[in-house]
């Protein structure tokens, strides 16, 4: 088990490292001169060159990469205009447009994304899995057919369409919910009621999309498991149906769900761009999107790396969880 863990960890770290190389390479090569941010109007070539030298962006690419990685490991200083700004480790770069370290911007946007992802995950996991299990157990009934039809529509509807419909109906027409205060969705100071009102639509919209595919996957997996021999054995030895379904059926049927859940949650934590954009919530995805429109490459690069980090961590967690749930994985 320990060796398995170690191997997964090493693979994860190597993958992350390759991702940093690729992301750094691409975002450094593409145009967008950070010196222009600091230079005045119509700067001369010398002025620009001077600023570039100060920022260190005139150095060869490998050297810039080494500086960047050193920043991640031990922090570094940025000569921004008049003063030096220290960026603590892990330093993911410095946003010249906003004049703050990238990591600060990321940690400021993360609570919004995390709240959205966590709430939606809870909803879709409960909803999707229970609908899927019930559908499998009542295969072919009216409930099964209705549930599968709705879930098929669910996977075919883009979040920005359901999101707009939700806003149109519940905020604009019925006015059950106030318009989302995009500047402080949590309320200022923190207000649980306002938080709930801000996030309930994004939660439901996001959860609907995922619940639909989870219900379908759970149903297929459950149907497959319930036709296994050991289920018949369990029934034959007189176990109550409830025990057969929960202990024997669901435990095995839900392992693929664990995998999918981990990966989906990891990807969402890196920013749910479409949902955040639809509702105007300033999460990681929306912030990165705005950064792109302002050519703030350090911020995009930092967010991309951060998102990749979540995906890779989720991959490792899923593999380890899987090894715990399914002993066969460990042996191979």
């Amino acid at each position, binding site marked *: 088990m320990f060796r398995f863990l170690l191997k997964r960890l090493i*693979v994860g770290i190597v993958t992350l490292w390759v991702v940093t190389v690729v992301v750094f390479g*691409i975002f450094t090569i*593409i145009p967008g001169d950070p010196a222009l941010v600091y230079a005045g109007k119509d700067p001369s070539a010398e002025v620009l060159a001077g600023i570039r030298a100060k920022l260190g962006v005139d150095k060869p690419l490998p050297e810039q990469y080494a500086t960047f990685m050193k920043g991640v490991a031990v922090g570094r200083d940025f000569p921004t205009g008049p003063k030096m700004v220290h960026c603590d480790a892990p330093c993911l770069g410095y946003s010249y447009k906003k004049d703050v370290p990238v990591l600060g911007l990321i940690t400021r946007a993360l609570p919004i994304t995390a709240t959205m992802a966590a709430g939606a995950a809870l909803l879709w996991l409960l909803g999707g899995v229970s609908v899927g299990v019930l559908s499998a157990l009542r295969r072919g009934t009216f409930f099964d057919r209705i549930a599968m039809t709705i879930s098929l*529509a669910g996977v*075919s*509807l883009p979040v920005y369409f359901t999101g707009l*419909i939700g806003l149109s109906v519940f905020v604009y027409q019925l006015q059950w919910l106030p318009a989302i205060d995009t500047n402080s969705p949590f309320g200022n100071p923190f207000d649980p009621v306002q938080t709930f009102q801000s996030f309930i639509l994004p939660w439901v919209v996001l959860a609907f999309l995922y619940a639909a595919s989870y219900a379908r996957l759970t149903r*297929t997996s459950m149907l497959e498991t319930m036709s296994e021999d050991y289920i018949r054995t369990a029934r034959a030895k007189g176990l109550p149906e409830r025990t057969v379904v929960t202990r024997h059926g669901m435990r095995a049927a839900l392992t693929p769900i664990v995998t999918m859940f981990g990966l989906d949650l990891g990807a969402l934590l890196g920013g749910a761009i479409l949902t955040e954009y639809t509702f105007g919530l300033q999460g990681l995805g929306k912030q990165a999107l705005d950064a792109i429109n302002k050519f703030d490459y350090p911020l995009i690069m930092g967010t*991309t790396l951060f998102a*990749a980090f979540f995906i890779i961590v989720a991959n490792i967690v899923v593999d380890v969880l899987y090894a715990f749930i399914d002993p066969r994985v460990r042996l191979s």
Partner: protein
Amino acid sequence: MTTSPQDAILGAGPVDPTATPPEGVDGTPGGPPAEPKIEGRSPWALAWMRLRRDKVAIVSGTVVILLFLIAIFAPLLARLAGQDPNLQPDDPSSVLDPSGFPLGSFGGISGEHWFGVEPVNGRDLFARIVYGARVSLLISLLATMVQIAIGVVVGIIAGFVGGWLDNLLSGLVNVLLAFPIILFGIALVTVADSVNRELLLVLLIGGFSWPYIARIVRGLVLSLREKEFIEAARSYGAPTWRIMLRELLPNLVGPILVYSTLVIPTNILTEAAFSFLGIGVREPQSSWGGMLSKAARGFYQDDPMFMIIPGVMIMVTVLAFNLFGDSVRDALDPKSSR
């Protein structure tokens, strides 16, 4: 993806002549000892028979064909409606109120404007919707081809050649799977501003989503390469490329077909998402995602039809492709029963 790659190995492919067609297709139980009519049917013929009997397949397949016809004959349809997708009315006040919203109920739907008109500039929505089908289908289909081509080549090489090449390619797949694609894509699209947008979208969607296909194909090849017919081909000295092309590829056609039909809807959604985020095809080209994007910027409250029509188009298209893809999979896979 609800099936594991193994499930997708289907009876398709010409390589296994000893396989008998599954029973129950033309079963003649009981009856007098009259000579049972034995008829050879290729796995493809069997799949086609199953598909034709599937009501869902018929309906969704018809919708898919209709959508293609709409895309192909978009100019004709627009002319039939007497409209031009890019023409703004000479007198905007004939279709729009002073604040830029369509006159009349339901977004200005009338005998002249079948789907109403676009807010602010008053362009005909029906014409823009049918032209939008073009963009949506063309980009997603081409992206699917790119994705399948790269995925199949990488998958076959990684699975069949193995060794360090397999490690390298599998590593590449893992790195790509860890990339936040939309974020990265947006950055690239913004930078490559002068490049043809349609081409860029095709390369972006296709170029980033092939790892899934590659993984599946690699898995299939790993199990196929241990089969006797590959050993036979090797033993008479067939070169590697020949084994890949003539022995492996035919066996992969079925699963590849299934996954193609299932990734098309995903690609349609991705294209719409890019357009929604404002980095899809450029104005005045119309796209469904772009319309929703405009609707989101302050029009959906007072002109809901402008949001509903493109949204429903996306949903119907994706749904039809999903259902048809499911049916194709069921038809090609004798084991599956829903």
